[in-house]
């Protein structure tokens, strides 16, 4: 186990906020937090890992300052407000700086997306699962293929 239980709770809350449970399961059910832990612990290089950990700490610090509790304990509105602020700040940095390191929100959301859409739930329930399509047609009506076809990755 790489993360502390508090870090894990923050990651779970952030993941589910980005890909929530709707008519299909969300990030937590799809195992996204476990995937993020694996990538941060065993795939990231030192620089990416340090940036991730700093960003994660900052999420809880900001929530403490704003609401007096850690992120996972805060109200839904507070969580959304903080995540929106992180997104806006990150986007501003991407627009204003020449080739900046990926800001925390964008880094985290990237992990959630790749973890969710490579999970069994993401590939089989959220996307249209066609492991063996059997034919190729280059021009069909979108209505015939209602969801993005999982690309096998």
């Amino acid at each position, binding site marked *: 186990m790489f993360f502390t239980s508090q870090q894990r709770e923050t990651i779970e809350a952030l993941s589910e*906020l*980005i*890909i*929530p449970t*709707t008519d299909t399961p*969300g990030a937590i059910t799809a195992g996204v937090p476990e*995937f993020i832990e*694996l*990538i941060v612990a*065993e*795939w990231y290089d030192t620089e990416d890992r340090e940036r991730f950990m700093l960003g994660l700490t900052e999420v809880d610090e900001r929530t403490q300052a704003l609401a007096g509790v850690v992120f996972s304990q805060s109200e839904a509105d507070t969580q*959304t407000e903080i*995540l929106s602020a992180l*997104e806006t700040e990150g*986007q501003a940095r991407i627009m204003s700086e020449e080739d900046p390191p990926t800001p925390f929100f*964008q880094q985290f*959301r*990237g992990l959630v*997306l*790749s*973890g969710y*859409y*490579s*999970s*069994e739930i993401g*590939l089989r329930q*959220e*996307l249209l699962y*066609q*492991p*063996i*399509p*059997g*034919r*190729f*047609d*280059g*021009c*069909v*009506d*979108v*209505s*015939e*293929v*209602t*969801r*993005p*076809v999982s*690309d*096998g*990755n």
Partner: protein
Amino acid sequence: MARQERYDAIVVGSGITGGWAAKELTERGLRTLVLEAGRSIDPENDYVMTTQAWELPFRGRRDRIRQERERPIQRECYACDEWSEKFFVRDDENPYTTEDGKPFLWIRSRQVGGRSIVWGRQVYRLSDLDFEANARDGFGVDWPIRYADIEPWYDHVERFIGVSGQAEGLAQLPDSRFLPPMNLNCAEQHVRESLMNHFGGERVLTIGRCAILTANHGGRRACHYCGTCERGCTTHSYFSSLAATLPAAAATGRMTLRPYSVVHSVIYDPTSGRASGVRVIDAETQESIEFHGRLVFLCASALESTRILLHSATERWPDGLANSSGQLGHNLMDHTMGGGAQGLISGMDDKWVYGRRPNGIYLPRFRNVSEQHPDFLRGYAYQGGGSRTGWARGNDMPGFGADFKHALRAPGPWQFRFYGFGECLPRESNQVTLDPDRVDAWGIPVLNIQCEWSDNERAALSDMSIQAAEMLEAAGASDISTFIEDNPPGLTIHEMGTARMGRDSETSVLNGWNQSWDVPNLFVTDGACMTSSGNQNPSLTYMALTARAVDYAVKQISDGRL
């Protein structure tokens, strides 16, 4: 004392050319030994076609840290992913050296089937525009053959492997014997028509020509469009030696296939002036074994075949066997890749594709076909195609939450990309030699590779990106952006040359039949033989030359000349 065994013919390598040599030799009655440096592959157990991302520890991202240790070079190839990395060599066992600042990426497989298990499957004929190229502008030596010499052998190979594609009647890219073409998608059809209107017949966008079956063929099944061939295909729908030529050779009862057989050198008999066989190191036991045969076919891949010859130096040829010309190891080529442009195509938002086509578009060479471009010689062609973006565009969209998640269910805009592949001039200074200071895991000296692009290749890359943007503009694309990638030689994995064919023994290693000028029972039929590179994906030409060389060699034997 080393063990010894005798055969009619020995084929070194079991990949795309070794499989062809084995098939053609055994079908002509020769008892043939096929030596493969790597392990056996069992499609039932080794292919990972049905493995899903969630079944892999890193979900397809690959184990970055282990790959950096074991495959720091191979991982540069897109196909060396978490599914398929086992089909590529370990770099720590198979080193080679380059000079600082002159990288060359040598992407390799050692296994029964070789790289034909993970190849790109694109197949294009060369034309006389290519076979006459060296003679026309003076780079390299003249090819000893012309299109008419190889045409029946292209037919022969294509009939067996199965090639899907669309006949276009272009002189610079002769049509193959085609199975039905795969469809262009809506965006590609639109770009094809726009280019027809704008450039007349000069720039023709066609579906990629590929060795993937669109109909059942020769006991192999039509493609099921799962889309990731490089994981291995259990229905054998794309051509590989493992799926097609090696089984044909085995069916004759005359093939002996020996895996784990690292060829150390060719044995030369000065009395007869012939190659008497090869010396092998058993990769599992390190035992040294000799195999003898009347014919030796080197099909180990361009640089491995040349490495074996360099390591087979004799008193008569101290710089490598069969090297009277001094050209062995020289004139290394690869194709450039990565000049191009991309843009968005509007107006087809209600259309999409069904299935995952393992193939893209091809836009054949149009430069230096009828008039000379002021900035560069030779030409280039594009691959690429149209597609609608998927969930990954979420990384560039604002937002999160339920609306964000549901927005990613719809496909994104149609994008279109032209990605160029260019010809590389044959230059003597691009070369391989044996590195005196380093050996591989079997004690065999490794190659030192010196290869650089020249201004001619760079000028063509630049033109690729400009012309790609111009064509996208003609097709009404928006948000057009150009790119010129800085890919080192080797990464296109079309490495070729270093034992070129030619018209005389003073300037070439092989004659017009892929036969060594110096050692008449020695043939080299993989990419090492190439006299120029063209800009087409080369495997089809290697296969045709191999079949042609076997036909010649066996006739020479029956005529009593070999």
